[in-house]
């Protein structure tokens, strides 16, 4: 396995609690989420159901609900607990000096 590459994608101050942020990293769309517990999560932004932009959805606890058809996605595991869709890719997040880095 190649070593994970850390990339700075945003500043913590750019994030709004419970409102997702879309970043495009090397052509890949990633959704960043600041949850109620003050944790930052990063997942592939494309909903496994019909491709909706997860960053525009509703954040509740550790879950994101897609804005198109309310598909529920676990931000920690990428699973869709109520459906049998393919897992969404999740990314490890590291915060250093107020900067958000993700491991690709």
């Amino acid at each position: 396995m190649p070593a994970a590459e850390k990339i700075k994608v945003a500043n913590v101050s750019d994030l709004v609690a419970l409102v997702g942020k879309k970043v495009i990293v090397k052509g890949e769309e990633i959704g960043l989420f600041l949850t109620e517990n003050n944790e930052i999560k990063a997942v592939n932004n494309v909903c496994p159901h019909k491709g909706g932009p997860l960053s525009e959805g509703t954040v509740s606890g550790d879950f994101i609900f897609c804005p198109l058809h309310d598909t529920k996605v676990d931000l920690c595991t990428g699973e869709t607990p109520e459906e049998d869709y393919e897992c969404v890719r999740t990314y490890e997040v590291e915060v250093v000096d107020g900067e958000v880095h993700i491991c690709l």
Partner: protein
Amino acid sequence: MSKKRLVLIGNGMAGIRTIEEILEREPDMFDITIIGKEPYPNYNRIMLSNILQNKMTMDETIMNPYSWYEENGITLITGERVVAVNRSQKNLTTEAGRVIEYDKCIIATGSNAFLLPVDGSRLDGVIGWRTIEDTERMIEMAKTRKKAVVIGGGLLGLECARGLMDQGMEVTVLHLAEWLMEMQLDRKAGDLLREDLEAQGMHFEMQANTQEILGEAHVEGVRLSDGRVLEAEMVVMAVGIRPVTKGARAAGLEIGRGIIVDDYMQTSDPDIYAVGECCEHNSKVYGLVAPLYDQGIVLADHITGRPTEGYSGSTTFTSLKVSGCDLFSAGKIYESENVKGIEVYNSVDRIYKKVFVQDEHIVGAVLYGDTEEGNRFYNMMKKGDSIEEFTLVSLMHKAGEVDAISVETMDDDEIICGCNGISKGTIVEAVHRDGLTSVEEVSKVTKAGNSCGKCKGQIGDLLEYTLGDNFVANAPTGICGCTDLSRDQIVTQIRAKGLKTSKEVRHVLDFNDKGGCPKCRPAINYYLNMVYPHDHEDEKESRYANERYHANIQKDGTFSVIPQMQGGVTNAEQLMKLGEVAIKYDVPLVKITGAQRIGLYGLKKEELTQVWKDLGMRSASAYGKKTRSVKSCVGKEFCRFGTQYTTQLGIRLEQTFEYIDTPHKFKMGVSGCPRSCVESGIKDFGVIGVENGFEIFIGGNGGTEIVAAELLTTVETEDEVIKLCGALMQYYRETGIYTERTAPWLKRMGFENVKEVLLDPVRQQALFDKVMDAKKAVEKDPWQEIIENEEKQKIFEVERV
């Protein structure tokens, strides 16, 4: 043999329940006539406090509709009082001079509110609360008067005070004793209750002995015997009730405090029975429902010639219908030489429980904060169970170890519905026999749960247990999977507990999922905005994407931009601007929308703010659950059939109500003649111009389910149209369930009821004023607001790395 003539005087809960019991035994034995002085069929008097507290409508309290009387061949005379009972002739005379003959007569005249015999008790504005009419008068007065005093801190007084607060009044309760409900609560529970009610904003004057009610023609205040004077524009007397015995006394029946009856509910005249609050049995007069029903059963057995053990008095219990103050009380509630108490007090959750024991038996109970066990203690009291095998007090067990009352382990004769005396066995039998699957069905067939409604949860448990896997979880009552609470319960709690954020709502009301879901999050945000239009800070994170980004999200995640063109009127400058923007951003689709506007489709989120800036136009809010673009025809200005200036009116409607949130989208249309080119008949608010004015249609939906609008009225001026539209919007805002469109709303509320509210000039004005006040909070064009505020643009930005 011809049928015997049975006449019931009094069309209330006790009398009708007795008739139901009789019909169940002998449907054809009697020719029944019922005479009631109130102009309604039998309604649930217990629920009047829910009407006052805005939790129920009048219609919902009707227990036996007019059709019930017809189906059972009963002659019903309402709005007429019986003035004389002539026992020697065996007939009655009504105030209209009607003479009605009887073979058997039942008196169920109930009771009146007791008015304190103090100076001023007859002043205008002094009310004794007992009937629908009293309730309506109070609601009416509450619109123009601010300060109310309720005399009496008992059950009725407190429910009344809470109701008047819900009607917007400032309420002070005067109570003679040292703590509230001293007949049912001990000091500790009484004090807990007072603290909780004070936190809701109720004021109290304790040990307050009313000496005089002040005022000239109209009540102005109350003077207490210690000199305290309280200002009041309304005074409600809730110090007790007095059995109605006047007619019975005049007829020469034996009277004590009530009409005296024997164990078979017979008065001193064997052909005349008495039942309910008007009668006195064994020196006792009851003012609660449960005993009335016990009495009705005995009466029915006796009058139909069935064997009966007779009536031997009732054990009663009390609960209060005020949100956030759950309490239960039954039997003896004071310790004495022989009566010992076992109590538990948990000041963390404000829960207090005390059980009173005499000779190893429970003789009374007071519960505050958690009343789930009320029925269990009440059953143990009624059955005389020994407490021998119980652990009397146990502290700090893991959840579920104690206190679990499972319907499964209950005996068949244990009472589930205390009001109607319906046992577990009766319910289970009915469920099997009639194939019942919902709580509503059980209530309909067995009466369980249709009085105070507190046992509905247990009925649900019982259904689940009885039907096992066949139990289809009935349409859940909660607004979503996160809670069992309904819209009304949530809104009531928001007001009662003063909840200010949706997070607070989910935590205080103990949602299963404290984070909420896409169903309840926007709903609660809406309710909070509705209740506190100026004080609640709109929660963007709880809005749907459309409303958060002020644009309609499309299937590929792009957005559409639809600028305002009021009344569908545009000009060359706007069209050129739209063209330039479409070219600059390479907009994939430019299209006329369903609502006669121009839409640019396929814009990226990060482009939105710049597009709005370039356009320099306002948002048409074509994406929200709020006022939408108003459709209109060209009208009188150009059309040869037009009767009114419809475009002008359409523009005025759109301007007046723009950006106001509603439970679902709110569409309007203005047509200039009955040809109705804009299809006003399927609009939430539709106007059709006619020669002499404007026809107003409401509750039409052209969406998923097509429903034609109802004709509300015809008005003469545009001002009246605007006024009615505002009133409708506000009434819908205040009572609608989030995502419920006006057609189902209208059906649920009842067109006649909505019509009455909207056409009442005082209520119409009040609603209009409220919607205009709410408008002040959303005065600004949301696009402009975002363009001017960099912080607000943050959620639109997309980073590229």
